[in-house]
């Protein structure tokens, strides 16, 4: 009888320790997840900012200005444009 009780006590202690360690693991993983989520949010914010920046750089008005001013490009005169018809086999 005493032997069985001792065995049960040992099992109980082991279970209790297991619970403690599981709880600790859970907290640790939770903290990690929390950090990952914060990072995801920050990256999201960064993405938004980069999109905004890309949008600003690629503004049609800015592209026109750069093309005309910096690169000296201009619209071709209608006379210098040749348009070609692709045949039906080649697709449009």
């Amino acid at each position, binding site marked *: 009888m005493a032997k069985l009780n001792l065995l049960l006590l040992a099992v109980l202690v082991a279970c209790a320790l297991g619970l403690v360690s599981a709880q600790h693991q859970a907290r640790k993983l939770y903290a990690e997840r929390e950090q990952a989520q914060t990072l995801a949010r920050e990256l999201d914010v960064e993405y938004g900012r980069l999109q*905004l920046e890309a949008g600003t750089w690629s503004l049609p008005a800015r592209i026109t200005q750069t093309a005309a001013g910096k690169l000296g490009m201009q619209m071709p005169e209608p006379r210098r444009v040749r348009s070609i018809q692709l045949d039906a086999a080649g697709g449009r």
Partner: protein
Amino acid sequence: MSFAATPMLVRLPVWRARVVLVLLLLGFVAVGGRSGYLQGVRTAFLKEEGEARYARLIEAPATRGRILDRNGEPLAISTPVKSVWAMPEELEADRRQRAALARALAMPLEALDRKLAEGAGRDFVYLKRQVPPEIAQRVAALKIPGVFEHREYRRYYPVGAVTAQVVGFTGVDDVGQEGMELAYQSRLAGTAGSRRVIKDRHGGVVEDIGAVQPAQDGADLVLSIDSKIQTLAYHALLDGVRKHRARAGAAIVLDVASGEILALVNVPSYNPNNRAKLAGAQLRNRALTDVFEPGSTLKPLTIALALETGKATPRTMIDTEGGQLTIANYTIRDAHPARAMSVTKVLQVSSNIGAAKIALSLPSEAMWDLYRRVGLGHPPELGFPGEAAGRLRHYSTWRPIEQATMAYGHGISVSLVQLARAYTMFARDGELAPITLLRNPGYASGQKILSTQTARAVRAMLESAVQPGGTGPLARIAGWRVAGKTGTAHKLENGSYAPDKYLSSFVGFAPVSAPRLITAVVIDEPSTGGYYGGVVAAPVFAKVMRGALRMLGVPLDAPAEPLELPSESEHAREST
């Protein structure tokens, strides 16, 4: 020998031990009772109190959806910013620290002190809202007790003034106040979520308790607008308005097949990122919310009806009375007087008398019915706030003179978008397109209003109106065939026509062989360099159309020879 048996000690009476025992037992009973009471009866309250010390409800704010153009370019985007606030009661800062804070926030020290004084007694006062992250960092680095920051969203509009009236803007609390931001507020806003968590002493989250309610981010809104065409149209319109020192202007570009609005621009505009000095005139989306008497741009509708009902053919000769026609004390005049002209010529030189006579040969009910069916007199239902319905009186109240003047767009008012939409029936072989501000590519089927034959006949007439000899040759572009109609209307002021104030307009489409785009332009009160629609609005139309057709890669349907444009504006003359 035992201690108790020591003869030195007095033997204590037995009852004293009993009393102590009873007292101890009573103590146990009291403790047991109390703990039973706390566990059993007051447990809910105590649990709550306990949770209040470690559990926190965290708000999870939803990000507002973006507004994108049809190609995915952002037109409005939210990024988080910080707002700096203070608890005046808890603020401990000497003058030097306050000066540093004011410097970091780029405000004078007096202004900061005033804010703090105003907020005295309250435990919350905004010092500055929506500051960029680097400023927020500088403020945080000062580590002044009682000064805090919290996260907010700020809306940015990268395309700025070009799409200002379409996209609209949000207020400081991220709620839509104008334009599509207002119209689609609930869809863009999303719903904030929340979760209950356990926090440790350092404020770190230890674990979730209870159900987590995730934030529902707002959905993105994809507009039909093409930001390239939009930018092109804006600059073309701005140039036109400046060149003629006009008060304002609006232009719209429609996709013929899908009915999508590819561009919708207004001048004057404003920068939605900096709304310090805003006037009502800049905010209005004129193309949708303002109505005007369209003038001659309405003539093709009357003529289409005459063709449809068999009252006339393009070659039918109309007696134009030598340029003057009097109906019931009201004289209608032509800018290009002639004895007689064909129906085609009536449209080409924009004869009021011709249009009036054609109108008088038609039943007023049929005219009213056509106008109504093409969308005049009721709002276009784009879901945009403040869309105008225009004014179309019931035919039973029309007098003959009114029916005559309505043929050339007097006594009726429309918005520019209604006018552009009405022209879709000419471009689509008689079928009116439904129009939309949201991306919806593909063919949108609509209501058939005219026969294919009539629509093509009117198209041919509209093409002749932009040929040399018509009122709108400046609308032509090299490489594509164009068709359209000019309009020059006197402005209505206090119920009568102002003699020297005009609305110049042009509505047309291209390429004529297979129409792809409709463009409508209206310019309000041009004051220098002419005022005819053919001189003021047609060049803006040509610029927008040329650029847009090129961008969309529409095949040429005319020789790409440079056009010889008329040097003088003689032909553009018209009186409505």
